[in-house]
């Protein structure tokens, strides 16, 4: 990745978002977003609250209101697809609020998302990666701790065979030791060839993990920072993120 140019990184393209606009009712949130993610990359979407980072992930899945522009996943246009078909292109979504179903047990939560591609992790692999979940398998979703819920929210999309993971604020509100575990997990997943888009508030968590950072402001990408330019652009990032 070191030779990558910021606008057209080398490698096989997994996702290309072009001119994406998205709305919630009357409010226009995304104003023509463009970015590219290649297979096997980890990228982050950074920005202040309300900049449109979460909306970008939701728009990719058709979970916003009206949207326009183009979202190509593995060369297929998805802008007009119904939400339930988009997942079957191999996308796994971990929402900011984690979305653990309170009336389902931990294991039912884990088994809920249907297989969308071959090559997902087996239950055994998942329980090896997250031993806590095995102990809590019969507990109702609402009894799990914040950390366990977060693990479960990620674990259940690893089972489906999805290779493009959308992780929204996975480090939010968790104890430092759990955040470290999640960091190790993201590295492991990258080694296994997963493509990951992370929305992060916690820049210190995201910085060492990502190949590239996209900074969003007012629903547009205003800065692209490849890993190797990170040091040089720290001042600019501080200014944009207000960290």
């Amino acid at each position, binding site marked *: 990745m070191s030779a990558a140019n910021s606008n057209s990184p080398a490698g096989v393209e997994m996702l290309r978002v072009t001119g994406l606009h998205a709305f919630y009712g009357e409010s226009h949130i995304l104003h023509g977003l463009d970015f590219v993610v290649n297979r096997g990359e980890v990228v982050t979407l950074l920005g202040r609250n309300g900049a449109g980072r979460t909306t970008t992930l939701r728009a990719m899945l058709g979970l916003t209101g009206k949207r326009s522009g183009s979202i190509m996943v593995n060369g297929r246009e998805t802008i007009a697809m119904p939400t339930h*078909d988009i997942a*079957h292109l191999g996308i796994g979504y971990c929402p900011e609020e984690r979305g653990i*179903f309170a*009336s389902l047990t931990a294991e039912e939560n884990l088994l*809920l*998302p249907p297989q969308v591609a071959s090559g997902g992790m087996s239950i055994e692999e998942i329980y090896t990666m997250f031993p806590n979940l095995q102990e809590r398998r019969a507990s109702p979703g609402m009894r799990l701790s914040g950390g366990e819920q977060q693990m479960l929210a990620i674990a259940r999309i690893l089972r*489906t065979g999805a290779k493009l993971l959308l992780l929204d604020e996975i480090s939010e509100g968790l104890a430092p030791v759990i955040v470290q575990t999640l960091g190790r997990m993201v590295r492991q997943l990258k080694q296994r060839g997963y493509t990951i888009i992370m929305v992060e508030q916690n820049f210190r968590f995201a910085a060492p993990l990502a190949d590239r950072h996209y900074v969003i402001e007012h629903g547009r990408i205003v800065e692209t920072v490849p890993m190797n330019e990170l040091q040089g652009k720290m001042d600019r990032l501080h200014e944009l993120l207000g960290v």
Partner: protein
Amino acid sequence: MFELLGITPQALYSQLLVGLINGSFYALLSLGLAVIFGMLNIINFTHGAQYMLGAFLAWIGLTQLGPWLGSPDFSLNYWAALIVVPLLVGALGIVIERTMLRHLYKLDHLYGLLLTFGIALIIEGLFRQWHGSSGKSYDIPEVLRGAINLGFMYLPKYRAWVIVASLTVCFATWFVIERTKLGSYLRAGTENPRLVQAFGINVPLMITLTYGFGVALAGFAGVLAAPIFTVSPQMGADLIIVVFAVVVIGGMGSILGSIVTGLALGLVEGLTKVFYPEASAVVVFVIMSIVLLVRPAGLFGREK
């Protein structure tokens, strides 16, 4: 003891049986309402009309279908009706969901309630137009005629069958929803349909089938009711008011709650008929008022 209270054991048992029968219908109907409300967020006021439709279709199948088709000997018997009629009522429900209800999900509950209430009035009006308000009778199928002597009372076979059949269907529904993979989709979809859809499950289709199923339960109850209650256009309207009270007491959207509450209130009604008959028509509503004051989410409901 019975003498002290001035009642006979026979009266007590027979009213308890009537209560259990009514409770079976309350359970079946409120279960359908609970399933529909959970997934669609719609209070299905058409439920009573769909129950009536079930009974009427069974009657039409038994007595009218043959002559219509030009072969007077042909008729859809009770057992066939028990399968075919719920499918027909469910299919009609699916048409209603696809063409009308689906446009209301984003609006307040009130709109769904008004629309389904309107549809109920139309269906009932059409049947009153075609068949008048007088009731039709439906013969009990041959094998279920007569009664079993239990020693302390005679149990009519058909009534025993109604209780067994409706409890079986209620239990099977509960089992599918609470204990199977398919049910986990339904429970998850009730909580957060958008996320379930983002995982790749066709939620709009699931909603359509849920409505079809809930309505088919009403159709099934209608067929069960045909031989014991008079088949008439307003039979559903009379029953559904009590059923809504049952749903309020049990808690909107609770599966087990609707079954247990349905049966229990049937029994309470039966007991009231024995001990204080004057109150039997209002006892359910008195309980509803108390529950609303003390526990507004219902006995089995979760506060939101």
